[in-house]
Each structure stands twice: as C-alpha cells, then as structure tokens.
C-alpha cells in the first residue's frame, strides 16, 4: 500500500517539477532569508537559465542559524542532505569537529578553477579546519552597519553637508545623539533586541573597539576583559533603559520600525541593503543612507563573518566525484558572478571582483567599504560561530541584560562561566 502511495507521490512530484532526464541536478541549501536572499534567488535563476539543459540547481532556503545547522548536522550523520550548502566561516572549527564537512582537495579545486590567490589570505585560511585542510570556498565578507534616516537626522542637526551623519563617535556623543533623536513616537535606534545573533554582533563590535579579547588561550573574558564586556553590556542596556531603543524587538519588526520611519537609525547586517534599495526603488522609503558602525570607544572595529560554500560529509552516502566536480564549478561560477551578490550588500570574497571598477562604483557599498580594514572575526573555537555555544550565551546572558532583565556585571560573569564550563 505504502509503496503504491509513494509511487503516486513520486509521479505527482515528477509532474510538478517536470524533470528532464539528461539534466544534472545540484541540491542546494542556504540560510539566506534576509534581504540578500532576493539577490541570491535572482543569481540562482540566472545560473539555471545559463545552464538550461545541462545543470539545474534545486535550492532550499531554511531558517537561518540553529534550525539550519541542526538540519545540516543530523542530515550529514545519516547520509542525507544537499550536494552543496552555504556555511559560515565562523563556524568552521565547530563544523569540522562534528564531521559535517567534507574536505576539498587542492586538485579538484584547481580543476574547477578555484584558486587560493583569488581570495584574501585571511579569508581563505578561515575556511580551513584545524587540520589545515580546505573545507570551504569563501563567497563574501559581511558585517553590520548603521542605517539612517536622513530626514530625521537632519531635523536633529546630526547630518553633515555630505549627507553622512556627524557627531556620533565617542560613547558620550553617541548617547547624546540617541537622546536627541528620540521624540514622541520615534525611537532613535532599532536593533533586533530579541535576536541573540544581532545582540552578539553589536556586543562583539563594541568589545573590540576597546581591544577587549573574548577568547584567548582557552580562557573566556580573561582578566580586565570581563570589565570591558560589562561596560559594553551596560552601554547597550542604557539604550533600551533610556527609551532610545525598543527592547525585545524581533528581527523583522526591528526592520519594519526603521523602514516605517518609527526609528531614526537601525543597526543590522549589510544583507538588509536590498530591503532598503528595493523599497526605495518602488518609492516607499525615505532618503536613507548606511555607514560603518561609529566608534564608541578607542578605535574603529566591526564584527564580521564570511559566507562560504561547502560540501557536506554525508556519512555512507558521499557526494559522488562527478557531482563534486560539478559543484565546485558551480561555486566558481558564483564567485565570478559575485558582483550581483555584492548588490546584496556584501563585500565579495573574490579579489578580481573586489578590485573591479564596477564594484568600486557600487552604491551604497562604497559608503561603508572602510569597515573591511578594521573587521574583526569571531573567535576561532569549536564553541564559537553561528549557532554555537557562544551565540547561545549571547542570547542567554547579554540579550536579557540589554533588555534590562539582568545586571550587566552578572551577565558578563555568567557568560564567562557558562562558556568556560563548556570548554572543559
């Protein structure tokens, strides 16, 4: 009975997709659910059109973060999963330790045209495991930026003649600016305060702006780094407590607050650039801009991560060599076409694209391109990276502290102890 039903199902799905026989298919998973997902969808369509009749990518976009990486890990363990997937470089040590990733040989990479020299040295190396093997090919470098509403900033006297905000550097100035921007019905700044990843990114940015070290030699927030972390959490808590930033705001809601003019500024990833660009194009957005996160402490620094492509290590059912070759060619194609991906706000990992005039002229990326020089990546550890214990800890301690449910000092201390405990 069930076999019959399954046959019927197969027939039904075959009808729905209309799969042609000779075509090679590549099963693709990503987590690109932000504004950049729209750009990736367009790129995927372009790829499929260009390779019509020979290769077809079948993409799936899963929930970003824990749901995505849980699926990847359990699928790989039972020999299921995609042929290729997006992966965060910050998670590389964790991914390699759980056996989710398949190493990429230098010969097969070369055969597909993927060259180490085409990428920044640090970026390329971050895609390697502790064993020195290459586990992924970078696609981009991405970071968080400050989106702003020019009209509201101008009203508050915070907009320079060049259309860029002024007077935001230094914690005192920043706080004063937030106070000034908060008026009846408008908050100064929206941040996804109910999203642990967003809280982590802001926290790590501000920690590094004062040379705070999150993890060194197996020790979390060692020495005076704890005090620095406390200061950062205290600062973030102040934004919410003073009514400058709405607390406990979900990711989509925090964007909606900004785009509907109910928040003058917005801190989020570059991947939401397309959301703004597309809204502005259809005339539904005010005059807006984006800049590098202001320097609240001693020097500029911004959290950054990198999207990369990887092949999962499907236990007992590995991706066949022929398919691997095809996948690597596909990866190469996406890097060659990553100017379109840069339209998703990102900095392309491919140096030829990065150096091209077309990218240098790309707006609004050039407005915040300076951040690349002072980008700081997540600690290299099996406890760090997207959907890792470090992100969990940010959600369990820094986030409630920011929302006023915990004292900053307690949050920093508990975060340290919790992670130190897991490091054993």
């Amino acid at each position, binding site marked *: *009975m*069930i076999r019959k*039903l*399954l046959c*019927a*199902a197969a027939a*039904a*799905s075959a009808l*729905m997709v209309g799969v042609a026989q000779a075509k090679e298919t590549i*099963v693709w998973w990503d*987590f*690109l*659910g*932000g*504004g*950049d*997902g*729209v750009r*990736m*969808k367009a790129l995927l369509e372009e790829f499929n059109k260009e390779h019509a009749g020979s290769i077809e990518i*079948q993409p*799936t*976009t*899963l*929930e*970003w973060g824990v*749901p995505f990486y849980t*699926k990847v890990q*359990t*699928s790989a*363990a*039972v*020999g*299921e*999963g*995609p042929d290729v997937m997006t992966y965060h470089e910050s998670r590389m040590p964790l991914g390699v330790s759980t056996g989710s990733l398949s190493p990429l040989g230098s010969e097969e990479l070369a055969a597909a045209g993927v060259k180490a020299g085409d990428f920044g040295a640090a970026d390329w190396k971050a895609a390697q495991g502790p064993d020195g093997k290459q586990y992924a090919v970078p696609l981009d470098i991405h970071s968080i930026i400050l989106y702003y509403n020019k009209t509201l900033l101008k009203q508050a006297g915070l907009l320079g003649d060049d259309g860029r905000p002024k007077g935001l550097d230094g914690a005192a100035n920043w706080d004063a600016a937030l106070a000034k921007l908060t008026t009846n019905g408008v908050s100064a700044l929206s941040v996804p305060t109910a999203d642990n990843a967003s809280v982590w990114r802001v926290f790590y940015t501000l920690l590094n702006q004062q040379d705070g070290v999150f993890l060194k030699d197996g020790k979390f927030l060692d020495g005076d780094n704890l005090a620095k972390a406390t200061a950062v959490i205290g600062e973030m808590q102040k934004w919410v407590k003073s009514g400058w930033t709405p607390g406990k705001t979900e990711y*989509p809601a925090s*964007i*909606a607050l900004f*785009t*509907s003019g109910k928040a003058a500024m917005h801190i989020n990833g570059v991947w939401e650039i397309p*959301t703004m660009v597309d*809204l502005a194009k259809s005339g539904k957005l005010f005059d807006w801009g984006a800049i590098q996160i202001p320097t609240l402490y001693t020097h500029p620094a911004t959290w950054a991560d990198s999207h990369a492509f990887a092949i999962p290590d499907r236990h007992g059912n590995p991706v066949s060599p022929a398919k691997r070759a095809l996948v690597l060619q596909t990866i190469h194609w996406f890097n060659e076409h990553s100017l379109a991906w840069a339209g998703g706000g990102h900095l392309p990992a491919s140096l030829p694209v990065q150096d091209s005039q077309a990218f240098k002229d790309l707006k609004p990326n050039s407005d915040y391109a300076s951040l690349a020089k002072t980008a700081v990546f997540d600690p290299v550890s099996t406890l760090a990276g997207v959907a890792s214990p470090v992100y969990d800890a940010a959600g369990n301690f820094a986030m409630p502290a920011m929302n006023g449910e915990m004292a900053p000092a307690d949050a920093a201390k508990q975060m340290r102890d919790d992670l130190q405990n897991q490091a054993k």
Partner: protein
Amino acid sequence: MNAVAARLQRLRAFDRIGLIATLATLALAILWAFPLYWGLVTTFKPDDETVQSGVHLWPQHFTLDNYAHVLTSTKIGFWYVNSLITSAAVTVIVVGMAAGAGYAISQLRFPGRRLCWWLILASFMVPIPALIVNHFILMAQLGLVNTLTGVVAPQLIAPVTIIIYKQFFDSVPKDFREAAVIDGASEFQLLFRLYLPMNWGVTTALAIITFIAAWNLFLWPFLAVTSEDKMNITVGITQVHDAFGVRYARDLAVAMLAALPVAVVYLVFQRRVTQAIMLSAGIKG
C-alpha cells in the same frame, strides 16, 4: 398561594442567572473565535495595512495577493501532497491493522493473546516523544530518514484504535456470530462481512480522527525530514524561509492554507469527529 409566589420568584431569579450565564458563554465563545478570525482577515490585507495602528475588523483594500504569492513562490504544493500521502497512509494502515488486531483479540482464542493485549495497554501509557531519539536511529539504520515511509512508520503506534475496535467487537451479539459460523463463514468473512459493516460508523470516526492527528503532527516529521520537498505542511511553514521584508500577512496566509483541509474535514464530518474524540477518550458517544 404564598408557596406558588415563592416558586415563581425563584424561577424568575433562575432566568436572570440563566441569561447572565448565556451571555457569559457567548462572550467567551466570541473571545475564542477571535484569534482565528483576526488571523484570517489579516491575510486579506495588503502589507502596509497589517502594520497600521488601530483595529480594522475588515480590510480597507481587500486583496488576495498574499495567497497568490504563497501559492506561486513556495513549495506549498509539495507540502500539501506530502501531508496528504503520509496522513492517508497512516490512516489506512492504522485502521486496517487495528481492525484486524481488535477482532482477533476480541473474538479469537490463540496463544500470546494476553501478552498482546498487555502490550497494547502498556503502549497506551508510554510517551511516544520519549522514543524520538531511537526512532531516528532506527530510521537511519533502515535508510528511511528523509523518506515519506520514515515519516509514516513511527506514527503507526496508535493503541487507542485497537482498544476501541475491541470494545465494539466485544459488544456485537454472539447470536450473529454463531449464525454466520453455521453458514460456514471463515474468520475473514466474519470480520469483513459482519463485524466491520456493523461498526461502519466507528471505522469512519476512527479514520477521520487518525487523519487529522497525522495531518497535525509536528515533532516527528520535523525530525525525520531533511529536505524541503519531503516536508509536510506543518513543518514546511515553520522551517522554510521566504526572503522578504514585511511578511506577517504571508506567514498567516500560508498558515490558513495549512489549516484549510482539516477545517473542511471537520465542518463536513462534524458529528463523526466529535464521536471519534469521545471514543478515543473512552466514552461511547
């Protein structure tokens, strides 16, 4: 005279209390229906209207765009088909197996009968979610993770259905059986020609409730399926991301589509559904 007046007085007081009780029930019923109504009406609003302040019980600009978007740009078609296949398979197998086992335990004497009955009662008490880890391992060993068979299999443990069949078969008068046996009917003929037709209502009720339960199941399909095209609808709508800005109305539209089949089944078979629920709780409706 006085006594009659007193009784009339009491009756009037009763009516006042009765009216208050009715109004309170009505208010509560409206409160209960509201979230469903509110969700439904939101799906007919354009995006900018969903984030407007104030309560608008009806859209100012009625639109079906959200449904059009969901139907064209998600794999909801796949999810529907998967939900339909797995729920139908679970229903057919569970009801078929339960009818056979219920009949055997009720009417036949055979070695191991007590053990089987004990097993059914034991499994009745055991929490299936506690078995998820080993169900997953077992499905992995059988190579059934990420297949529809793998989604169906652990749902087949449904002891209540067997217990109900047994109770109903127990209450079929012995005379019918004896008469049929004298006519030379085999056990299978007895089951299919006599016992099942006599309890046709029970079978439909059990089938409907099993189908609804399978359609609504979340935890196991969520674990057992890894790829988007094998997901059923309850999992798909929470796991697969639709990359766009303001998406309240779309999220709700896809939820309404997921609820539609069970809502229709319920409204069409209302009496059977309520009967089945009472049966599964051990009350003969």
